[in-house]
C-alpha cells in the first residue's frame, strides 16, 4: 500500500531517508541527522505539521550509532501524525536544534540533553532541566551505573 506521507517524504529527500515503515497507521521515517532541520522545516511549512508533540531520545547501546533521536509531529489541519527518527553516534552526539522552528522544542531538547547527553546545536539555553546542578553524567544512558547515587546532602548513618 502506498503511503502518501512517506512517499512525499522519500521523493523530497531521496538521499537522506534511510528507511520508512508504517505499522498500523504509525508512519515513521528514519532520517540522517544532517537532514533533520530541513526535513522538519519541510514538514512545518509545506505539509502543515504545526505541532511538535514530542522530542526525545533512546539509547541502544552497544549498537553504533547508539542513540536515536525521536520526534513526533502532528498536523492539526489534516489530522496527520508522523514520527521522525535520526540515528546519532555516541562519538559525535550532536544534532541540530529545532527551537528555530518550534519554540516548544526548547525544554524537550534540554531534557534529552540532561538524560542522554545529546548536544543540540543552535539551542539558546542548553542546560540540565531535571537533574540538579552538580549532577555528573547522564542517567538514562545505558552505561550509567544502575546503583549510582549522587546525593546533594550527606545521608544519615
Amino acid at each position, binding site marked *: 500500500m502506498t503511503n502518501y506521507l512517506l512517499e512525499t517524504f522519500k521523493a523530497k529527500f531521496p538521499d537522506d531517508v534511510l528507511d520508512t515503515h508504517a505499522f498500523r497507521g504509525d508512519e515513521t521515517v528514519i532520517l540522517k541527522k544532517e537532514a533533520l532541520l530541513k526535513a522538519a522545516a519541510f514538514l512545518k511549512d509545506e505539509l502543515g505539521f504545526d505541532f511538535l508533540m514530542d522530542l526525545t531520545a533512546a539509547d541502544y547501546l552497544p549498537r553504533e550509532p547508539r542513540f536515536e533521536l525521536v520526534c513526533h509531529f502532528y498536523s492539526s489541519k489534516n489530522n496527520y501524525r508522523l514520527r521522525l527518527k535520526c540515528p546519532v553516534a555516541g562519538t559525535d552526539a550532536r544534532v541540530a536544534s529545532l527551537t528555530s522552528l518550534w519554540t516548544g522544542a526548547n525544554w524537550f531538547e534540554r531534557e534529552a540533553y540532561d538524560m542522554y547527553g545529546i548536544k543540540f546545536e543552535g539551542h539558546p539555553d542548553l542546560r540540565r532541566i*531535571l*537533574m*540538579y546542578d552538580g549532577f555528573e553524567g547522564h*542517567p538514562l544512558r545505558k552505561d*550509567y551505573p*544502575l546503583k*549510582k*547515587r*549522587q*546525593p*546533594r*546532602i550527606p*545521608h*544519615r*548513618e
Partner: protein
Amino acid sequence: MGLETVFGHSFLTTRLDEAVNWGRKYSFFQYPFVTACCGMEYMSVFASAYDIARFGAEYPRFSPRQADVLFVVGTVNEKLAPVLKRVYDQMCEPKWVVSFGVCATSGGFYDNYATVQGIDKIIPVDIYIPGCPPRPEAILDALIKLQEKVSRESVLDRKYK
C-alpha cells in the same frame, strides 16, 4: 521546660509528663509534605468518611514552624532531599515524623538514580506506614501508634540531639 532541671525524675515531673503528653497527643498540628500519589489517601483521611479530626489531628499547618508532626507523603528524590531537611530543621521541638507509604519509607520500587531510598537517610522517623498507597485505616492506626509513643515520652527527654 525549666522546672525539670531542678526537680529531675520526681513526682512533680512525672505528673507534668502526663498532663503535657495528654495535651500533645490529642492536638497534633501536622505539616503535610506531600509529593506524590499517596497524597490522595492522605486527603481521604481528612474527609468525613475517615475523619482524622476524631483524633485531634485534623489541622494541617503549611508552616513548619507551627507544626509538630511532619507527614512525608510520597516519593522523595535526591533533588528534593535538601528541602525536606530544611523543613524538618525549621520545626520546633517537640517534633515527630511519619513516613507515609513505601516510597517515603524505602524508596519503594523506585530503586534508581533519582530516588532517596527511605527518608530516614535524611531525617529521623518515628512511624513508618507501609502500603502503596496505605489505606486510610492504616494512617489512623499509625496516628494511634504515634499517640502511644508520645504518651511514653518525658519532658526530661531531649529527643534528637
